[in-house]
């Protein structure tokens, strides 16, 4: 029996609202929002708290698209690819349209993953544990191939930046023996867990952009983007999704599946679905220039993650991502063990989770879709007023990531400068960031695979699922190489 009344509705609305704010603020994430609200689980019973916590989860994942589209600053790591096409759309006066497409794609992705959670949890969980460290390593490698796809016309520099990102991600302690790597003595406390992702991300995207604008000067105080145009093609219409059916299903499925695989995060989901959207596109050259296809792929995948990540959590006790790992705490604080018997022993809670997830997705859609035209006006604010606010928000966000760690603020500034230097020497920042995001997982699953095989590299070539992923990796690289050649020929 699902207990749903006014209190639960308020909790869901509050959760989604706060989650959207956390997702939209650079440096704040859904994980952080849930961690902050976790102690509230005591004040209310678990079922009521679930509406709040799942609201925070759905809202937190969805809110990231707002700054990604309007300011080219991903609010969350999983919305990096949203800005690739969303921001160019905003620049050409289609901010509201881009936001509405993103929100609708998020709803579809969320509902797709909810259906998967509802209907196929046991078989999908069984499938997930067939994916050993070897397959996870190959999937991360597959996600890395997006670097090649993004570096069209500039592949050598793009790949260099990607590898540099992987190298930088490995700075810090190696978990298996606690030895520090590439860490100077005077930073051995601050850099023990390496550079934190969010300050690096915000630095590279937000600060770099502001430094560049500062260099050219902000004499044009207002952005030139026109929101109130009467051009119908620049307004959102459901027809924008025409021809996107397969893309939506594929991307939602990729997002859901990546959520199911424990330890493979949301960033990998949106990167992978974006690269597949590009590979399958009839006009791949348009992705990255403001194509609806790219936006749909990114947003449906990162919301597809929500239901997906709950599958291994609720059926195996293994969280699918960092946010669901925090949710375990909510159950534990109530004395409920999440494991293979959870669904059997807690039917009521299970149905509440399904219902709450559906409600939260709908609330997310309503609270974002209708007021978004007002939020979109942020793009019209004068740059000399909005940029100081952005810097302030970035600094506060970076400081808050580890509950008041000043080193994260220095990281933010450092990577802002690094991104600025990259732009001067024509090294793309996005591949660097992708390498940085995936680097640690790449190493972890490589080392875990080697541990299991007793040191033999043959393990990467002997598993049937692995062969399939190898085929996708090779196809993806070949596609990117041919696309790159074509682009260079066109440039010539």
């Amino acid at each position, binding site marked *: 029996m699902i207990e749903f009344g006014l209190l639960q509705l308020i909790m869901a609305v509050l959760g989604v609202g706060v989650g959207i704010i956390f997702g939209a603020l650079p440096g704040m994430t859904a994980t952080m929002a849930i961690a902050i609200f976790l*102690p509230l689980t005591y004040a209310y019973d678990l079922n009521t708290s679930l509406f709040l916590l799942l609201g925070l989860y759905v809202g937190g994942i969805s809110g990231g698209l707002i700054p990604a589209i309007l300011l080219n600053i991903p609010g969350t790591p999983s919305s990096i690819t949203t800005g690739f096409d969303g921001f160019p759309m905003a620049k050409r006066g289609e901010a509201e349209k881009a936001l509405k497409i993103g929100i609708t794609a998020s709803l579809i992705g969320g509902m797709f993953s909810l259906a998967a959670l509802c209907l196929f949890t046991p078989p999908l969980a069984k499938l997930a544990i067939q994916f050993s460290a070897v397959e996870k390593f190959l999937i991360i490698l597959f996600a890395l191939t997006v670097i090649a796809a993004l570096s069209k016309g500039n592949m050598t520099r793009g790949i260099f930046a990607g590898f540099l990102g992987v190298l930088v991600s490995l700075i810090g302690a190696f978990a298996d023996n606690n030895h520090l790597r590439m860490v100077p003595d005077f930073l051995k406390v601050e850099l023990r867990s390496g550079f934190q992702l969010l300050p690096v991300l915000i630095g590279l995207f937000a600060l770099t952009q502001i430094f560049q604008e500062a260099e050219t000067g902000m004499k044009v105080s207002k952005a030139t983007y026109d929101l109130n145009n009467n051009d119908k093609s620049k307004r959102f219409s459901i027809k924008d999704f025409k021809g996107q059916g397969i893309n939506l299903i594929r991307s939602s499925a990729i997002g859901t599946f990546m959520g199911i695989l424990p330890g493979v995060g949301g960033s990998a989901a949106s990167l992978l679905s974006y690269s597949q959207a590009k590979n399958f596109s009839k006009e791949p050259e348009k992705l990255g220039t403001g194509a609806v296809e790219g936006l749909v792929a990114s947003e449906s995948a990162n919301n597809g993650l929500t239901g997906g990540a709950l599958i291994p959590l609720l059926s195996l006790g293994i969280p699918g991502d960092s946010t669901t790992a925090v949710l375990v705490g909510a159950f534990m604080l109530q004395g409920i063990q999440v494991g293979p018997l959870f669904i059997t022993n807690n039917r009521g809670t299970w149905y509440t989770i399904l219902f709450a997830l559906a409600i939260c997705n709908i609330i997310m859609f309503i609270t974002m879709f209708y007021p978004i035209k007002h939020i979109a006006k942020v793009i019209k604010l004068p740059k000399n007023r909005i940029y100081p606010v952005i810097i302030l928000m970035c600094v506060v966000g970076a400081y808050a990531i580890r*509950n008041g760690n000043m080193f994260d603020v220095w990281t933010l500034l450092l990577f802002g400068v690094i991104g600025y230097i990259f732009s001067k020497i024509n090294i793309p920042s996005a591949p660097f960031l992708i390498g940085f995001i995936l680097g640690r997982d790449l190493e*972890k699953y490589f080392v875990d695979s080697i541990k299991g095989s007793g040191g033999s590299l043959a393990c990467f070539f002997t598993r049937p699922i692995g062969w399939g992923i190898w085929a996708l990796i090779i196809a993806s690289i070949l596609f990117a190489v041919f696309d790159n050649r074509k682009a260079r020929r066109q440039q010539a």
Partner: protein
Amino acid sequence: MKKRIMALLMAAVMVTGLITGCSKKEDVNSFDGKNIRVVIGSTSTSGDSYLIAETVSRHLAKALNATAKVDAVGAVEAVDAIKNAKPDGQTIMIFHDMTYLGVSFGAYGEEYSLENMTVGPRVAQNPGAAWAAGVNAPYESLQEIPEYLKANPDAICRMACESGGVSHVAFVVFYEWVLENYGQDVADRIVVVVGGSTADKCQLLWDGNCDVIFADYTSLYDYTQTDDQKIAMKFMGLLDNIEGVNIPSYADLGITMNGEEFRFSKDFLVYLPKDIPQEYVDELDKAMETVSNDETFQSDLEAMSYRTAYLKSEDAKTFIYDKRDGLQSLIDAAPSLDDLIQ
């Protein structure tokens, strides 16, 4: 008129602010009315460190008339926060044996040793550390592993544990016991697979990349009850007995350390900055004693298979120093995990 009312209101707010601000007891050595940051040595909010710290903080805050917020910052960050915090009662740490084990195993430096902080009361214990194997493993307990290896000269047993943590201690005790009682050949065939989180270790077991894993009893319990052969597990032994749980501990299995009975529960203590005035410690002792006698607190911990284990600061200090020193010789003599990896 409106302006006058506004001005009057503003003035009233300012005066109230000034009065309450000035009356704040900053110079009194008490937790009363303060915001306490409770750092823990883990970044997870689902592990025993967070769950115990959160439960203790919630009850302790009431008893101290303060507000407490748990910050899951990680091991080095937590000990560093305590080392550098002002002794003003606004930062405390609640953490388990990793506090000193990190130094003992060399994970972090001597500057973070117990001597450089003030030991507060012991607040709780987690006795539930356990070894588990796949349900079809050819042994039923830790004791049977060396017997199995002795009977099967080509067999090996791969045990997953973490470097520098409680599982490292548990492994070293078991390894040394096997070495002493079954000889080098059998001990050599017990190899280490270094794992991270419980999820990582479960995946290693399900992938067939290890044979026995170390984790919390509660986190593994469901896997011992399922019929799904792919993920089903059985317990091989506990580090210490748990009330009402019929699984043998090291002591029951006769696994000894240097010939003596070995029991190990994770002891959670409050740690404070080194030069904190004694008044804080006394206040904390008094509050924690009250909290420990509270039945709601006891049942909150029991619901998560943890237990109250109050020791006042003075006794807790003697206890934790003895525990650390008792393990140091074992850690010094034990082979490095690097040498025991397959």
